[in-house]
């Protein structure tokens, strides 16, 4: 299929909240190889929407801030409506590398799996602060225990879905707990998944926007309540 050659069947979904400074460059870099970039502005108060609009025609806007999980779900639904065959979630702050997108979608194109999960621990990490590393290790352990999924990286926004897998997913936990919910759904769906090595770049900019380690506890709490009250 010719769509595979120019990657026009691939939609890159980028949830963004107050990423005015970085968003244009990130979108432009991605568009070089992948023409369909969907930015979901999650109620930003800065010029995220305008900057994104200038870089890609596919920009959606949440009138209220609902959280990264909600933004991703909105982007996925939009991409499906546009006929996407592969959907990739990608960070807006420049932590992810465009080169890694090919690594992520290759197994899906080959039919080896329906979902590819990026893992920084399979790949390499630049400038990962110790506290962040420990928190992530804890998240992996928690994920194995509660979700029963042997992942090496439990909290990575870099994910790729086949159309079938994307249609199956329904993120209901809006904020950061959506990552655990997603893993739950993947396990329960029985869909084939793989991890792929990706490189995460921690810059001063992205670190300042990241989650604090105490936020991790809140995420765990919200996720567990979500499981109990379903």
């Amino acid at each position: 299929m010719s769509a595979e050659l120019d990657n026009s069947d691939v939609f890159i979904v980028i949830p963004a909240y107050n990423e005015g400074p970085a968003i244009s460059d990130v979108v432009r870099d991605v568009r070089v190889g992948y023409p369909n970039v969907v930015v979901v502005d999650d109620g930003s108060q800065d010029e995220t929407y305008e900057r994104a609009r200038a870089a890609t025609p596919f920009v959606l806007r949440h009138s209220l801030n609902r959280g990264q999980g909600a933004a991703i779900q909105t982007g996925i639904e939009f991409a499906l409506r546009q006929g996407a065959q592969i959907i990739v979630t990608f960070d807006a702050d420049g932590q992810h590398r465009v080169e890694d997108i090919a690594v992520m979608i290759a197994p899906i194109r080959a039919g080896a799996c329906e979902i590819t999960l990026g893992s920084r621990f399979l790949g390499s990490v630049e400038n990962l602060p110790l506290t962040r590393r420990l928190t992530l290790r804890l998240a992996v352990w928690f994920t194995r225990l509660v979700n029963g999924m042997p992942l090496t990286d439990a909290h990575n926004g870099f994910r790729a879905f086949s159309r079938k897998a994307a249609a199956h997913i329904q993120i209901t936990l809006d904020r950061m707990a959506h990552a655990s919910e997603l893993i739950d759904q993947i396990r329960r769906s029985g869909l084939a998944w793989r991890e792929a090595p990706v490189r995460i770049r921690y810059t001063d900019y992205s670190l300042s926007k990241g989650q604090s380690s105490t936020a991790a506890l809140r995420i765990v709490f919200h996720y567990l309540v979500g499981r109990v009250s379903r």
Partner: protein
Amino acid sequence: MNVFQWVLVIVFATLLLASGRATLRGTIHRAQGVLWSLLWLVAIMASIYPNLTSRVARQVGIDRGASLVLYCVAVAGMVGFWMIYIRLRRVRREVTLLVRHIALLEADREIGGGAQSGAAALHGKLGGARPAKADE
């Protein structure tokens, strides 16, 4: 009866009238309205005859009537808090569904394309949340 008892009786009597009226008008479910009214009645009785609480307390093995009242209020408070929390989560969910629908609708208008759009999609999406009950 002392002043404090009078204040309690007036407060609970007002609440009794309010819940009674809401039940008759159908503003709240019959069963819920009856239960609340019963609660306020019991509260009025306990205010006029404080020894009632002592007698009930001793029946269930608690020292003092005041302790019994305290425990009941504490338990009711915790249960009530949890129910409000759960309801709040559901409201948040509904808001997100609405915000998403608006975002997709606007995108449809500006970008176009896509097989499913418009009001028809709204009913499907929002119907996914549980339907509202009379008292919400």
